[in-house]
């Protein structure tokens, strides 16, 4: 087994009267066990110049990585919008099963658990046709 950790630190010195500092480390394990996850896509990069929905992770794919992600387990997905923030109006909508989760502005990242399942694809839609670059990693079993 492997040991993979994900650490988050949220910090601010001025969002409250007192400094905010939240830090947490999760060890990525298979579902319901203390056994480390052993499969990953590795870090990947995709680009799009489309303003339409684009598949990032196709769960129904008949081959490739998505097929190997077992539904309803303990997969994790990391996504980062690598673009510069620019004027702050450009972003990428992240969707699961065409339902919008939220907007990743330039430089933003996210780490979510991913259940997958039929039709539970992860998609993204850029706010315009400016070339947008995303990086992602999937950890799965």
């Amino acid at each position, binding site marked *: 087994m*492997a*040991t*993979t*950790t*994900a650490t*988050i*630190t*949220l*910090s*601010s*010195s*001025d*969002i*409250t009267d007192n400094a*905010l500092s*939240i830090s*947490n480390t999760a*060890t990525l*394990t298979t*579902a*319901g*066990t203390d056994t*480390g*996850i052993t499969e*990953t896509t*590795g*870090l990947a990069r995709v680009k799009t110049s489309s303003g339409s929905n684009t598949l990032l992770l196709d769960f129904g794919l008949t081959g490739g990585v998505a097929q190997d992600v077992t539904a*309803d*387990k*303990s*997969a*994790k997905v*990391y996504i*980062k919008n690598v673009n510069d*923030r620019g*004027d*702050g*109006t450009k972003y990428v*909508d*992240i969707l*699961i099963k065409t*339902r*919008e*989760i*939220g*907007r*990743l*502005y330039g*430089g*933003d*990242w*996210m*780490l*979510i*658990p*991913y*259940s997958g*399942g039929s039709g*539970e694809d992860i998609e993204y839609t850029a706010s315009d046709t400016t070339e947008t670059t995303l990086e992602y*990693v999937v950890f799965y079993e």
Partner: protein
Amino acid sequence: MATTTATITLSSADLLSDNLSLSATTTLNKGGTTGTGLDQFRMERFKIATGTQFDLIEATTAASEDANYVYICNKNTDATHYVIISIYDVVIGRLYAGDWMFMPWDSDVVAVGAGGSAIEVQAYVAEAELEYCLFHNGETKLTSDDS
């Protein structure tokens, strides 16, 4: 405005044949700005019983079409305990004991009739103790909740 940063470090010495070490930091800014920080947030720690899907964060027009960020952590310690996190009826995934997640959130209340965008949570196997933090833009309270 405030300056709030979110940093992630993903690391492993033995998942791949070489070290995995990935780090990223973002500043939580308001949408449509070059660098104006979000200055409102809420944080809570609570427990939920099994068997019911609860609204963790209800959809609101104040958080629609903008930059909002949600952090959720499952504070349970038994590896078999998990919660399912959903955007209304669309499952995002299972957050097992000790896991955390961080994601952007667009509270699209326009879509309520078609499913809405409330963040919902349901515990499985056992009662779950959760922490969450929502960084958001604009929740100016104008009327009392019971008016």
